[in-house]
């Protein structure tokens, strides 16, 4: 607060006054007769409200009118439905979580299968390369065989 606020003094006096009055009030209500009066007041008020409620229900019943209690009971049904939806939603969450877990597991297994297939593929490629090499060796052998056969035939030709 600014130094020049003309209401500062007013505020400070009020604070002092408030504190003083509250202290006085605090002391003055700290007595048993007042508690007894309050107790009687609460009892009387409660009895009056009970009577009023009973009569209100009676009147509404005779006049065949719904009361606030009836509306409250109807609302309770809605609340029960709301609670059930909440429970269902939580169960869906659980299902979702389980699905996620299952999908993760599936992905893991699929990954393993993929790795295995890759491994087989590599092995297969290796095997086919070896096979190709072997085929080449075989053809070379056959060529060599043919050459050998040729060489065998030549002396025969020379003898003719």
């Amino acid at each position, binding site marked *: *607060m600014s130094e*020049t*606020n*003309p*209401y*500062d*003094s*007013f*505020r*400070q*006096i*009020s*604070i*002092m*006054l*408030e504190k003083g*009055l*509250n202290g006085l*009030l*605090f*002391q003055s*209500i*700290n*007595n*048993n007769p007042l*508690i*007894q009066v*309050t*107790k009687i007041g*609460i*009892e009387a*008020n*409660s*009895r009056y*409200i*009970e009577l009023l*409620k009973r009569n209100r229900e009676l009147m509404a019943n005779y006049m065949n009118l719904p009361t*606030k*209690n009836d*509306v*409250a*009971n109807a*609302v*309770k049904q809605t*609340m029960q439905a*709301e*609670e059930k939806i*909440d429970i269902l939603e*939580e169960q869906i*969450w659980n299902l979702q979580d389980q699905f996620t877990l299952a999908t993760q597991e599936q992905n893991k297994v699929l990954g393993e299968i993929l790795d295995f297939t890759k491994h087989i593929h590599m092995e297969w490629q290796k095997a086919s390369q070896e096979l190709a090499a072997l085929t080449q060796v075989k053809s070379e052998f056959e060529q060599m065989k043919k050459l050998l056969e040729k060489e065998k035939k030549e002396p025969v030709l020379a003898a003719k």
Partner: protein
Amino acid sequence: MMAVKSLVNIPVFDLESEKRRWNNIYKVLSEPKPDIESTPRRAVWKKGKAVLWYHAAPEKKYTTPLFLVYSLLNKAYILDISEEGSVVGNLTKQGYDVYLLDWGSPGLENKDLTLDNYLLDYLEVAVKRALRHSDAKEISMVGYCIGGMLSAMLTSLTNLPIKNLVLAAVPIDYSNAIVPNKWVEALQNGTLNFDRFADAYEVIPSEFLYAIFMALQGFNIGPTVNLVTRANDQKYVDKWRNMDKWMKDAVTFSGAAFKQMMDELYKDNKLVKGEMKIGGKKVDLTNIKCSTLVITSTRDELVLESQSLPIMELISSEDKTYQHIEAGHVSLCLTGQFAYAIDPWLSARSTRLI
């Protein structure tokens, strides 16, 4: 001494300022109450009259969200009274995602709601929803007044991952209260009993709760005097009007919960003795093991410091802090100061967003 010094000063009246002052006071008296503009929010879950609000941080810094629980006896919008300078506004600006549970004002259909229902059917479910919504692994609970008491009770009962617990102006020990001692005795020995009263009314009218608050504050001329003193300051007047609206906007209270509070807390003080039962299970505050911060304020006119202190002894948390700060019960929330009071403690215990 200061008063005397000021009294001697000759007041200087500035005509313009005075015109503004009395014009504002006239407006406050004649115009309808202002509309409260909240920080941007979205309802995540609703049940009966209760709503779980989600306030996203504009620049999220922490992955651990905050879950705010306010008192059952007042409206929760005091925590979100304006975008500027409210508790929720400041917390979101500090980088926290905030969930705020607004209990709402119970109607006749909620007359049977007990503290058990509030805890297990509302609070626990709402925390679960917040965890699900935020996709966070842990959450920090921040409870104010009765909301603090409920947060502490829930933390001791639940298996939910509550990382931090902040309790402000929390009444735990009811052996003493802010009323004269003969009234406390009358409540404790059963001379003053509200059972029949609660049964008759079924739902305690908001006027009754408002009257209790007014009675507890005695001659409450302070706010009016403050308004007259600072009515030339438009910003203060706007804030004052928001507070005034909130003060007079009392809630109803379920009769069953009122009875339970009066009998089990004010009369038998069961919580601090470890005898209180919720959903058939004993509430044992020693089950609280998470990091805990307890805040009390120096000028609290509704909850005594001695009502909050016993919780420091009761909980088993190794990491527990106690702060006594310069504020009042309402002003701590109203000014948004609460957000600055808890931020240093909370930021050190919240998981940072990488």
